[in-house]
């Protein structure tokens, strides 16, 4: 369906993303465990973790200000709001004023900023280090993401993700132009950085030398930590959703009603599963890059994105 998306559908998609976010992490962790010949935790483990944390009490450092307690809620809110902008089961513009891809990137950047502020607020050494590293990586990732979005937006004439996805149409790989290949390559380079995975960040470790994102969560506990973890799961699935909206068709063009929605959701699940498998494979076959090598790695993405733009515009 490529008609307008009503408010109920947008809300449904948003809730779907939040609910499925931990599952994606669980699947990636299970795949990684299998690739390492371990049995690994079940794919529902992230849900159990979050539920457990919500039941726990909160312990805070004495140095934290009142703002610290608000940080997890704000981060989660910004990330979930970003989720509302991604078309999941159906392409097409929303029936009411809603943000576009730039808004989505802005909300993700806001969540990142708030996380860093929270980490600095607690005054811990690891939090500060994590925040500093994250803020070094962020300005390298975000402009490139924007350029990838622009390189597809130039062809569609809009930055609204639903319309972009509708423009992509059903015959996707045949309709891919040269710029799409380069844009997708840039996106694949950026994906580990944006989802906090190897080779840029290691999500499994709490070793102070290697962590970026985890370092910033150290001072949070209980429900606050649960919010932060849910936010990072959601951020991951939103990023994957952004990739699938930009480069793969969303929904099916000729099936209406509930069946169409279910088929669209199934298609979305398949796309996310493929991308998650890619992430798990990359994470299992590469070592984490030294921090000062990361800019060079992201530079490949930058050059690819710039060439995609050059092919479109020049």
């Amino acid at each position, binding site marked *: 369906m490529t008609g307008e998306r009503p408010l109920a559908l947008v809300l449904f998609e948003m809730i779907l993303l939040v609910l499925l976010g931990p599952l994606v992490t669980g699947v990636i962790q299970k795949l990684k465990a299998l690739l390492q010949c371990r049995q690994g935790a079940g794919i529902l483990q992230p849900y159990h973790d979050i539920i457990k944390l919500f039941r726990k009490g909160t312990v805070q450092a004495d140095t934290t200000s009142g703002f610290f307690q608000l940080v997890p809620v704000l981060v989660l809110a910004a990330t979930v709001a970003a989720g509302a902008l991604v078309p999941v089961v159906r392409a097409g513009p929303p029936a009411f004023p809603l943000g576009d891809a730039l808004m989505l990137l802005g909300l993700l950047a806001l969540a990142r900023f708030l996380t860093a502020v929270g980490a600095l607020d607690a005054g811990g050494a690891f939090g500060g280090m994590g925040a500093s590293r994250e803020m070094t990586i962020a300005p390298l990732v975000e402009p490139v993401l924007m350029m990838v979005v622009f390189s597809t937006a130039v062809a569609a004439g809009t930055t609204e993700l639903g319309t972009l996805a509708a423009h992509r149409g059903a015959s996707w790989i045949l309709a891919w132009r*040269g710029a799409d*290949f380069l844009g997708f390559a840039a996106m694949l380079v950026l994906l580990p950085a944006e989802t906090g995975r190897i080779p840029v960040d290691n999500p499994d470790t709490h070793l102070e030398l290697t962590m970026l994102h985890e370092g910033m969560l150290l001072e949070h506990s209980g429900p606050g930590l649960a919010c932060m973890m849910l936010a990072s799961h959601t951020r991951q699935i939103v990023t994957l959703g952004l990739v699938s909206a930009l480069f793969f068709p969303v929904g099916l063009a000729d099936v209406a009603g509930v069946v169409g929605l279910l088929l669209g959701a199934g298609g979305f699940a398949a796309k996310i599963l493929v991308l998650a498998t890619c992430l798990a494979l990359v994470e299992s076959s590469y070592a984490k890059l030294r921090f000062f090598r990361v800019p060079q790695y992201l530079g*490949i993405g930058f*050059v*690819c994105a710039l*060439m995609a733009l050059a092919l479109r515009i020049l």
Partner: protein
Amino acid sequence: MSSETVQTIIDDLGALLLFTMILIIAARQISHAIHSVAAQSLLIAIAGAVLATATGNTDLWVIAGVTLSIKAIVLPWVLHWVVRQLNVRREVEPVIPFSATLALAVAVVVMSFHLSASLGSVRQAITGNALPVGISITLLGVLVMATRKTALTQMVGLFASENGIFFTAMAVTKGMPLIIEIGVILDVILAALVMTILVLRVRSTVDADIADLDRLRG
């Protein structure tokens, strides 16, 4: 195949060629660069085959076959063999930092698009992005040669540069005379052989890098 479809495929292949070129520039290990240049030659062979089916030019089939066998299989194999002989794995020694090379690469690509846009009537005659893409791959190959210290990486740069020339010639003229193409390929093989022997001999006699050979001593 209609001419529009061919144009689209050539454009897509051009984008993938640019991507392999980025990989060559960003490669930290010599073997990665060799794999990338092999992939690039494979893409050129595919481009040749596509143009051959489109134009019905049998010469292009021969060229595609020769490109596939010589440049995508034999030359990378020779390079890998030399790497094994020299027993080096990380011998991509840049003169300037990788990030600076990448920035220069961006400048080169933008410049070649700008240049070919200013060609005016010549540009009008050639549809698609084959010309700017070919020019930028040629120049980027030269960039790789200029910014690496070791001979092997410079050889990879030379092959990439030659690939760029080949792609431009093929896409722009829809098939040059067979004799010219064969001549170009023979040139490359000869250059590869001479450079291989030179690298091995220099390494075995004086154990020096190309960077050490920048001064003449009487």
